[in-house]
């Protein structure tokens, strides 16, 4: 088939379109976007709602505690956790806002998206692992303080060994699970962006 013929066919290919009307436009604009970044943005809102819910729950638990050294410890932890979570949500939100520029050149938008998506995945991975480690250490510290007065049935060094072993196992499980989970969630999309960008750059590098 001649290229001229292809062009003619191409020009005529959309002639059968029926113009879109106002009602249909409204119908479309009321729909939720299914783009990966729109989904991540919606997930962040859900994550924030859960975070606030959990935070309120912990405030309620702490407010019902009797006055002791543990109470002060819990209050400090709660404040620190609240500040850290707010920083995390703020940073993630900023990343998502800057993540795409739909009216920019395709190549620059895809590069932007890839860069920020990789940053986001790293953030998820690091925060997830640090959170598990910190939670475990804090739980251990609380357990240690509360059981200080009790008589020990097992030697102190053995307690520490068990604590470290369980912690290491938990950390490793979480490490590999979050790697697999993040790859399942974002891996394909990241790879797709990389392939497209590679193809766009291919001839330029040669």
């Amino acid at each position, binding site marked *: 088939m001649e290229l001229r013929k292809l062009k003619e*066919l191409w020009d005529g290919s959309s002639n059968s379109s029926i113009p879109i009307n106002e009602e249909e436009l409204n119908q479309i*604009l009321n729909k939720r976007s299914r783009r990966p970044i729109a989904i991540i943005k919606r997930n962040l809102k859900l994550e924030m709602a859960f975070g606030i819910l959990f935070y309120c729950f912990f405030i309620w638990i702490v407010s019902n505690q009797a006055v002791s050294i543990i109470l002060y410890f819990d209050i400090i932890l709660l404040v620190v956790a609240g500040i850290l979570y707010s920083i995390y949500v703020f940073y993630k939100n900023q990343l998502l806002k800057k993540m795409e520029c739909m009216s920019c050149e395709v190549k620059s938008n895809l590069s932007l998206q890839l860069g920020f998506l990789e940053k986001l995945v790293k953030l998820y991975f690091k925060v997830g692992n640090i959170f598990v480690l910190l939670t475990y250490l804090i739980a251990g510290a609380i357990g240690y303080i509360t059981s200080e007065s009790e008589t020990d049935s097992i030697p102190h060094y053995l307690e520490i060994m068990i604590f470290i072993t369980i912690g290491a196992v938990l950390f490793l499980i979480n490490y590999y699970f979050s790697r697999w989970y993040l790859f399942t969630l974002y891996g394909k999309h990241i790879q797709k962006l990389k392939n497209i960008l590679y193809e766009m750059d291919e001839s330029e590098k040669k």
Partner: protein
Amino acid sequence: MNSDKEKKFLRLISEHEGLIHKICHVYAADALAKQDLFQEIVIQLWKSFENFRNESKISTWMYRVALNTALTEKRRNKTKVSISFLGSLKDDKAQESNMDADEENLNLLFSAISKLTEVEKAVVMLYLDDKSYEDMEDVLGINQGTLRVKMNRIKEKLRQITKV
């Protein structure tokens, strides 16, 4: 929604609807996927419309948004959405039963384009729409030299697929 803004947008979409339909034909595999992609492109155009300052041509802006959407869209397997205007997107089965020579050629054209890579599809679409290499660079962000090399490869590929 601002009524004036909406009317302006609607006029814009109506004037350039063909462009969106072509992108949907090229990037989506079936009627439902085309429907999904059409809606997604319109949503993204609407979101970007506010910031459109006539710094670039309307068609360049539309191509950028539409291609950015098509290239990063998450394809879904099944959907139940059905909107009347999308009936204009020809159903594959309906096409088969009432196919004249031009439709057959058109099918051949789209089937040939579907064998190209995502980037090649974008390049050939702009080429078939008579865009200059300067315009293509403006939309895709790929330099003109690279675009020429790519276009030559694509022509060769298309020639082989359509058996000129």
